[in-house]
């Protein structure tokens, strides 16, 4: 019964979404909020229905209703963890890592020597597995958020670097020639041509990094942490079978990550408004 209800709701939401997406309000703000929300609601309802119907034990996957109850039960705890992991660990690591990657990209791009020398090595640093560096960085930078930020720095560095380097090569020949006729200096060309042309790529990297930052900060807590933080709570919760609390943390992570990503995407739309992908009618 619960399954049928859930399936029904899901199909209904699907239909509604198609209707909204093809209606003439599809570009309005309410429609753009409604569609993903409806989609998400449908998933939640389906999840609830499936869990109830198949009587999945709560210690494996609790229904969303229980997760919601857990969220309501422990707002203070969730806030404390959020501050520790997202505000301190992820955010500072993200800023440092993206900044460093960007500067490195410019450095690499500036000098053919470094392009040939550093970029290939950058490729090798690409996959320093987080589980390998986390224990080392915890041992170097201590248990608190500093080591988490360091892990995030390492994690976000590569995607931003690759995209920034690619982006800096993106301006077309005529655009560059124009700058040459002005006798523009390297920095002027960089500032006025190559950076704007690189933005679509750079933001690609920044968006991917925004989700990696969160994953990095959380996973790093597995290798040592104070007794707070989302990763700490999740791993401890799994061990204690407080799976509802685990999912409450995941929900917070999801909201935080989405907002984080959304902010980056918002800035992107403002900065690269001229790119065809944002000029759709």
């Amino acid at each position, binding site marked *: 019964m619960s399954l049928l209800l859930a399936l029904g709701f899901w199909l209904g939401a699907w239909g509604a979404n198609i209707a909204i997406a093809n209606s003439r309000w599809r570009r309005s703000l309410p429609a753009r909020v409604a569609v993903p929300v409806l989609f998400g609601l449908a998933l939640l309802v389906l999840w609830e229905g499936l869990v109830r119907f198949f009587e999945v034990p*709560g*210690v494996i996957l609790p229904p969303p209703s229980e997760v919601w109850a857990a969220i309501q039960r422990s707002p203070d705890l969730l806030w404390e963890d959020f501050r520790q992991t997202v505000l301190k660990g992820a955010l500072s690591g993200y800023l440092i890592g993206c900044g460093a990657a960007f500067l490195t990209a410019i450095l690499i791009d500036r000098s053919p020597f470094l392009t040939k020398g550093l970029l290939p090595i950058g490729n090798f640093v690409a996959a320093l597995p987080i589980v390998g560096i986390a224990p080392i960085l915890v041992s170097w930078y201590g248990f608190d958020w500093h080591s988490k930020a360091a892990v995030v720095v390492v994690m976000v560095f590569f995607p931003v670097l690759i995209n920034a380097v690619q982006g800096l090569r993106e301006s077309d020949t005529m655009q560059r020639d124009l700058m040459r006729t002005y006798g523009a200096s390297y920095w002027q060309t960089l500032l006025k041509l190559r950076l704007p042309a690189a933005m679509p790529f750079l933001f690609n990297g920044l968006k991917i990094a925004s989700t990696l930052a969160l994953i990095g900060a959380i996973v790093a807590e597995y290798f*040592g942490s104070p007794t707070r933080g989302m990763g700490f709570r999740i791993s401890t919760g799994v061990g204690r079978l407080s799976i509802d609390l685990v999912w409450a943390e995941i929900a917070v992570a999801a909201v935080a990550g989405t907002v984080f990503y959304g902010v980056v995407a918002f800035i992107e739309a403002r900065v690269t408004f001229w790119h065809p992908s944002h000029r759709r009618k």
Partner: protein
Amino acid sequence: QDEVTLQLKWVTQAQFAGYYVALEQGFYEDEGLDVTILPGGPDIAPTQVIAGGGADVIVEWMPAALAAREKGLPLVNIAQPFKSSGMMLTCWKDVGIETPEDLDNRTLGVWFFGNEYPFLSWMSHLGYATDGAAEGSVEVLKQGFNVDPLLQRQADCISTMTYNEFGQVLDAGVSEDELVNFKYEDQGVATLEDGLYVLEENLEDPAFVDKMARFVRASMQGWKWAEENPEEAAMIVLDYDETGAQTEAHQIRMMGEIAKLTSGSDGRLDEADYQRTVDTLLAGGSDPVITAEPEGAFTHEITDMALTQ
């Protein structure tokens, strides 16, 4: 042949020698069992695996099992190969720690992931809060899998197992007289480790009960063999370690220490030990691990069958 899947609590190492020996020496085969041993790892909660149907029987610590039981996952202890606890708190002597009273206002490394219960009980026993360094309280760090926090003095004390991490500390060149060890066993807050647990509902099936009886019998045979032949047992474990990263020296030492913990048990759960564990956990202070005396959390049925045959 009956199939049995065993989920270990941690990676392949001499801590689980009995099972590997029983597999290697054919004890399981003799009982008509086809046993699959699944190593664990960080993030593998054996309780979750058994709840999801990924295993028939798991190796788990009793606090975690009882906590799971309260959460609605009815685990039942069917055998207890480990008589005593190997958990300790290992501290630097030179920071001025000699007795549990000196732990006040210190930074302590603790394992979480369901392994924190004995520590929390002990702290509430001592009357310490666990929310930061202050008078009457201790600062708790969630420690990772290595002993670096102690060696680098990020913590004054860390959790160790007699058979594992304590050895790591010594391997790092630290001599025993630089350290102070608080064994949970000595502090009267020892809880039972490494028992075998199954789901309660399965015990209604006589075929399953019979299978488990054979499993426990063969496993205990493995444990006794391992106690008598620690070096060979360590080598067997080494053979099963697919990471190839374990060393002979480590495993032989671990086997020696493990033998001390298993030697007192024939597999039967000692009800006094059980009661002590439950009392310790119930006394958990503000945040007790379990809130009520568990019912039916163990059974002698299996060990009775296994041992009387």
